[in-house]
């Protein structure tokens, strides 16, 4: 603020006094946000630190920084649980999550196109029903679904975790894609129709490519939610070799001794890693997708 020698001194001081409270407020706001961020990130920092701490340091000190790095925690974690290696567990988790992603993207976009663009009988009531199922508690249908899959001999396989996704049971994503498709200009399909495209070709060639942002949002959310899912896996899977990372972590739940802390949290870090990577890579889609779910409703 000492630069302006040409302008009268009075205006300079007036300008600074006028601006300073705002600047101070902005600095205070950033300081508050950063402080809040530090508190919020503490559990993650704690997780990372504990995963490389030697057993004797876990309980003895609250220092986040370990006295020495105990990488053997990760070696122990890589051996896995119940003689099933982490590689296998990771593969199982990935298999279920990818199946769910493909299923959701396919089935939800198909249903969404019908709701957003095509006319058919009972469209209004069916759409209302679809919206209502977003709010339906999963537990209301859990036991009969289990009985059905049990009758089909599918318990302790991945089918109960993947098959429902191919039947557009996650109505939230149908709704998300419907909202997005409604925003696309109708002229495109009109043009496609004039060029001789039926509903199928205009869906696959015109609409689907344009819906890509919503499909990516669907894919990422499905991946993360399936990856984090615990309840469904807990019910349907019981052979250790079919376990996912989440289920393997569960076996640490019963063991409360702190001696297992290092390997347990090393495995926790491994289990969180894909989500963190997905978040860093696609945060724009995730944040926008979440924002759009609320407005326009």
């Amino acid at each position: 603020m000492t630069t302006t020698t040409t302008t009268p001194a009075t205006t300079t001081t007036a300008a600074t006094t006028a601006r300073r409270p705002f600047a101070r407020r902005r600095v205070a706001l950033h300081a508050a946000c950063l402080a809040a961020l530090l508190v919020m990130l503490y559990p993650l920092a704690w997780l990372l630190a504990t995963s490389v701490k030697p057993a004797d340091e876990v309980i003895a000190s609250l220092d986040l920084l370990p006295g020495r790095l105990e990488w053997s925690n990760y070696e122990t974690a890589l051996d896995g649980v119940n003689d099933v290696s982490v590689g296998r567990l990771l593969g199982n988790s990935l298999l279920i999550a990818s199946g769910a992603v493909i299923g959701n993207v396919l089935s939800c976009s198909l249903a969404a196109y019908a709701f957003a663009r095509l006319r058919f009988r009972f469209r209004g009531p069916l759409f209302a029903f679809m919206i209502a199922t977003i709010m339906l508690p999963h537990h209301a249908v859990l036991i009969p679904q289990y009985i059905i899959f049990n009758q089909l001999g599918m318990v302790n396989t991945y089918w109960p975790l993947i098959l429902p996704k191919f039947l557009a049971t996650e109505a939230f994503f149908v709704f998300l894609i419907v909202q997005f498709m409604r925003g696309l200009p109708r002229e495109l399909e009109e043009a496609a129709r004039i060029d001789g495209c039926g509903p199928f070709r205009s869906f696959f060639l015109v609409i689907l490519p344009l819906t890509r942002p919503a499909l990516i949002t669907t894919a990422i959310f499905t991946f993360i939610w399936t990856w984090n899912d615990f309840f469904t896996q807990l019910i349907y899977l019981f052979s250790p070799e079919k376990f996912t990372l989440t289920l393997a972590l569960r076996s640490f739940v019963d063991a409360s001794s702190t001696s297992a802390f290092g390997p347990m949290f090393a495995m926790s870090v491994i289990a969180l890693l894909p989500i963190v990577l997905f978040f860093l890579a696609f945060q724009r889609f995730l944040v926008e997708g979440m924002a759009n779910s609320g407005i326009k409703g």
Partner: protein
Amino acid sequence: MTTPHTPTTVRGEGAAPPARPARRPRREGAAWVFLSPWVLGACVLTLLPMAVSLYLSFTDYDLFDAPSWVGLRNYTQMFTEDPRYWRSVGATLTYVAIAVPLQLALALVVALALKNMRHGKAFYRSAFYAPSLLGASMSIALVWRAIFNDGGTVDYLLGTGGWVNQPGWALLAVALLTVWQFGAPMVIFLAGLQQIPGELYEAAEVDGAGRWRQFLSITVPMLSPVIFFNLVLQTIQAFQVFTPAFAISAGKGGPADSTLFYTLYLYDRGFVASHMGYASAMAWVLLLAIGVVTAVLFRTSRSWVFYASEGDR
């Protein structure tokens, strides 16, 4: 519900242009092709299970022997003879009543703080949102249990002992994990705040309204549909929380049933004790309870949710 459509009748909806009636049957057929996975899922994985679980709720069923009809016994047992059931209802309601308002209040405060920020808004938005993605995982639930355990960080800082071992405090630890995930409603609030026209605030400023007045008279009413949306969504989600309570109490709902959430007890009855009929009755009560709560929220919303400019949407 979804009887296959017969394309012979022409309906007078007047929605499609009447110029090409010949095309409509084909398009209608196409619509059902697109819908078929959803229709199948809705029938086989939603409607049929709901009907079956209603039937099972009047039976005794252990997955192996055929269900035997017991009338209302599951319900009367639940309501009059099962103290654990009522403890689970109490724990769930207490948790919802603590976690949801705290989470939404924090989400709104942070959204307001970020709203007019010129630099770093996108960064904070993403950073605050991250826990919403991580928080549902078993990994974080285990971290939470360790931090709130005897000798954990909270015990060390506050000297209260481990929260997860004390009936009065364990629930609060779970609630704080939910509050930690305020990012998702915050992002939705922020999107809603940005839709409020700036002229409203300018006009209020001209009229001499202070910031608090502006918040009460402009922000709250204009944001009320979004507040309502978040309230309904988070309440329904909170009723169904499972993983953190399972992790913190090693699947038992302890100490002293203080974290025996409804879902946890339902899992215990159905899949641990194999009382599928009883668990189905619990599921239906949960369904009705969520329905009633949602209906009440919608009913009260008429008095406080303000939908601006009908022509706009």
